[in-house]
């Protein structure tokens, strides 16, 4: 292997600002704890999971486009590709150091090990971690980071100003997500408490979900959604795109959950993949049944949400539940998501893609379900699982996320404004924000 003693790292900061920072780290070089071969295969698996998580961003983009109107499609794609980039860059500059400050800089609630990323030679051996190199670790975590902001994107779609959203996302993903992440995965107070969130039902999905909730409340519903006290559905413009999105998200979840084992441990990873897939399948079936009963005819968008519901639901406990448990968690998530979509609409919370129902409701459900269906011995955990710890985790993350989101959104609103003009909303954000169309040449009715 090639030895590099010092790495300088430069990082392009938010939107325009270039933040240069040099990180020199000195991880103590232990003798490797696993064989080179094992380290290499672990690392291969983690890199595979990294690209699977990456492609989830295409999944999110496609789903969000599919469930919204054609006149806002350019805007949605623009937001999504920007978020991935913003997520990767802010995570380089501050996120990784906030989320995994390491022992030297740790605190229960907050820690920071300096700007930028970089490693010495030890970071490339199993001395860093038997499961992956420093770089793999960083990239895998960076891919997760952007996800929280992407969740919000769907909830505020079709009415949020582009610039405002990008600034908000950058703040949220740079500050709120890594701090919460540190509480659990970075070894903070939630980890100490025995809170268990395997791959992020709470840490990723509900963090996104709470942000989405604040965004929806502060923006208000889309023009024409609630008229004279009646709900007027605003139909998504492309079910194939929505389905492509869901299939790709499911696909990506092989890496999202499979990689959260943090090694290629055959028994553990393969079991996690089974629980993950079973929960998704169960979510599809139960959403189908409920939708068929409640709506008379089975609604594709509900069933697609059902798959995601199952996946989000099982994410917290994929490593500590039986197959039966996973199916039960997924099935309940599938029921919840359908009822939640309908419920939030009754509450006049206009969520174009069902982000609240999927990520918030099922994120919370999945985290609590760990306290119900989880068996610490399945996951080989040191501590016991407890419903109370789970509840504390859910609650504290809720409070912190709500505070952050509200603060950031208020600030952004004050400085830049949050919502596009009514006229722009009617004509579509594609023309308003970007001056272009997504389906040039196609005849599209824009009565809605």
């Amino acid at each position, binding site marked *: 292997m090639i030895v590099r003693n010092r790495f300088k790292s430069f990082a392009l900061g938010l939107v325009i600002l270039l933040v240069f920072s040099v990180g020199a780290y000195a991880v103590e070089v232990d003798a490797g704890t696993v064989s080179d071969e094992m380290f290499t295969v672990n690392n291969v698996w983690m890199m595979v999971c990294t690209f699977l998580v990456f492609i989830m961003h295409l999944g999110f983009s496609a789903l969000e486009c599919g469930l919204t109107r054609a006149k806002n499609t350019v805007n949605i794609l623009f937001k999504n590709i920007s978020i991935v980039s913003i997520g990767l860059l802010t995570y380089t500059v501050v996120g990784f150091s906030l989320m995994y400050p390491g022992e030297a800089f740790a605190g229960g609630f907050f820690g920071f090990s300096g700007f930028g990323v970089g490693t010495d030679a030890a970071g490339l051996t199993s001395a860093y971690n038997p499961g992956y190199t420093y770089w793999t670790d960083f990239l895998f975590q960076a891919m997760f980071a952007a996800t929280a902001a992407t969740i919000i994107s769907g909830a505020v779609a079709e009415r949020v100003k582009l610039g405002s959203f990008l600034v908000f996302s950058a703040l949220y993903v740079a500050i709120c997500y890594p701090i919460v992440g540190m509480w659990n995965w970075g070894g903070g107070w939630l980890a100490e408490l025995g809170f268990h969130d395997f791959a992020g039902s709470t840490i990723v999905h509900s963090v996104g979900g709470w942000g989405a909730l604040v965004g929806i409340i502060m923006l208000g519903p889309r023009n024409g959604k609630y008229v004279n006290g009646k709900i007027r*559905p605003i*139909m998504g413009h492309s079910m194939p795109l929505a389905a492509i999105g869901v299939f790709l998200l499911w696909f990506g979840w092989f890496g999202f959950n499979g990689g959260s084992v943090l090694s290629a441990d055959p028994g553990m990873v393969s079991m996690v993949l089974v629980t993950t897939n079973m929960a998704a399948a169960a979510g599809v079936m139960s959403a189908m049944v409920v939708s068929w009963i*409640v*709506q008379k005819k089975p*609604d594709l*968008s*509900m069933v697609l949400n059902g798959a995601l519901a199952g996946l989000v639901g099982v994410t917290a406990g994929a490593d500590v539940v039986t197959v039966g448990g996973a199916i039960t968690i997924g099935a309940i998530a599938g029921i919840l998501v*359908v009822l939640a979509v309908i419920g939030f*609409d009754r509450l006049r919370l206009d969520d174009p893609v*069902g982000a609240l129902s999927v990520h918030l409701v099922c994120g919370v459900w999945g985290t609590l379900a760990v306290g119900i269906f989880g068996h610490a011995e399945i996951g080989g955990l040191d501590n016991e699982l407890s419903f109370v710890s789970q509840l504390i985790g859910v609650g504290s993350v809720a409070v912190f996320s709500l505070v952050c989101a509200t603060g950031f959104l208020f600030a952004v609103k004050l400085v830049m404004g949050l919502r596009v003009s009514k006229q722009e909303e009617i004509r579509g954000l594609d023309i308003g924000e970007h001056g272009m169309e997504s389906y040039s040449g196609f005849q599209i009715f824009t009565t809605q």
Partner: protein
Amino acid sequence: MKLIVAYIQPDQLTSVKQSLYEKKVFKMSVTNALGCGQQKGYHESYRGSDIEVNLLKKIRVEVAVNDEYVKATIDGIIDGARTGKIGDGKIFVLDMVDCIRIRTGEEGCEAVG
């Protein structure tokens, strides 16, 4: 000269074309349209909310003919479009003052056919 405008069911277009051919009416223009008439709409449901769709898909056919062809054209359309069910559509006949063939500049009855 008359301009005949007909709204028909989309799936009757082929048979309308057919029966106009039999009546020696070979030229026409077609647009797609949405129509709202006696025919009942249907319900769509999306994410738990219902919406009544009463603008149904129709085809708008426009045929310019000389006066002696008016009857044949109307009959042709009726032959091809009638299924006997509500929603079969309507034919509107308008007076046409003039007609010009762009390619040649021919005017009037000459230009129509």
